[in-house]
């Protein structure tokens, strides 16, 4: 009789432990959902560190800096019409698609996001930042600013400081590099083509759902 009650109590205990273990299986799933702390995301969002100017970007492209990926988050149609040299098109709606994760979630390259201005790029940036993707930057002003500063720079007026003229010289030279021709200058026949970087997508093996511990 005594033995019997002992076994039933053990059984009850075992059931309790099994239920607790099942609870552990559910736990990590909820955490996966979260991303970084909202407070941290806010502090990242406040800092203007993420912005990169068109001048800096132009210099990086011309210098063939190998350390960054240029990502165009506009629609495929806009990308076909005009894209910055070497850019890869990842439309905002397919930002989370598996094919592009290898581009966005890596630590080898800096990622420079751009759109027509910087609204869409910032949306993408905020989302990627929540998922704790590293080294993401936003092109300040986007393609419109690129046009106004690099492709079609404004000539400084005479009263402006020398630095404005230096900047204009750089921008004019840059615009020639990117294919704009000025009458009177000897044209280069070849516009250099910046090769697209291709990151091989590693196919992940589908793992069985992991439990806790």
């Amino acid at each position, binding site marked *: 009789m005594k033995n019997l009650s002992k076994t039933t109590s053990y059984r009850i205990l075992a059931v309790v432990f099994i239920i607790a273990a099942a609870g552990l299986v559910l736990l990590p799933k909820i955490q996966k*959902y*979260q*991303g970084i*702390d*909202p*407070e941290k*995301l*806010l*502090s990242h*969002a*406040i800092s203007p560190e993420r912005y990169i100017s068109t001048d800096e970007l132009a210099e990086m492209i011309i210098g063939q800096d190998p350390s960054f990926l240029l990502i165009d988050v*506009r629609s495929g149609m*806009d990308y076909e*019409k*005009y894209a910055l040299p070497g850019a890869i098109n990842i439309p*905002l*709606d397919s*930002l*989370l698609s598996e094919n592009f994760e290898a581009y966005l979630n890596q630590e080898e390259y800096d990622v420079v996001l751009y*759109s*027509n*201005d*910087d*609204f*869409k790029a*910032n*949306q993408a940036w*905020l*989302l990627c930042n*929540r*998922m704790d993707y590293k080294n993401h930057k936003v092109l300040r002003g986007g*393609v*419109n600013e*690129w*046009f106004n500063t690099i*492709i*079609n720079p404004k000539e400084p007026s005479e009263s402006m400081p020398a630095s404005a003229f230096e900047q204009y010289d750089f921008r004019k030279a840059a615009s020639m590099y*990117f*294919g*704009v*021709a*000025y*009458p*009177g*200058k*000897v*044209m280069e026949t070849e516009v250099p083509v910046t090769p697209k970087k291709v990151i091989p997508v590693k196919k992940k093996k589908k793992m069985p759902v992991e439990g806790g511990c």
Partner: protein
Amino acid sequence: MKELEKTKNISVATVLAILVIIIGLLSYKKPKHIYSESVEATLISMTSLENVLSKDKIDDNSFLVDVRTSFEYSKGHIGNAINISLPDILSDQNVQRLKDAVEESKTIVFYSSDVNDALSAKMLIDQLGYAKTKVLAVELNYEQDELVIKDLNIENSPQDIQAFIDKSVKEAEAKNIVEVKPIPKKVIPRKKKKKMPVEGGC
């Protein structure tokens, strides 16, 4: 004797287990803010165009929030907007203010001098599930100390850049046709080497 030792062992184990549970409970800190929206859901909701309002869409039902600094706010702000500067948006008091506005079934509209700051506020509050908010697409400027509010076109592309480049190339070609002279090839006279008899080693 043996039975006694067994119970002793069991009680030690229980005490340890209970201790672990208590320590676990004590060290567990519930985070203040938790995302209530998954990343995928956020992506879908943020790509819809309804997130952005223009100036004339503001009505009595919109709850305007100025996310600039209090200094800029005191210099001038839109009508009945309240001020919550972006760095303080997650403080208890401000979250409560936003929640109250939601309860009064008002639409929260963020604005700032930089539309991206308003966007940051919007995305954060939306993802935390406190409210469904919007961004006001405006440009704020001062003219003679008066705040001037202009509508801002988000993500439009006024220029066809490829066309601009092609046009510049065409124009330059048209002007350059006369000027381009063939560069004369430089000819370097080659000295003929005398053939030497093959020399052996040593």
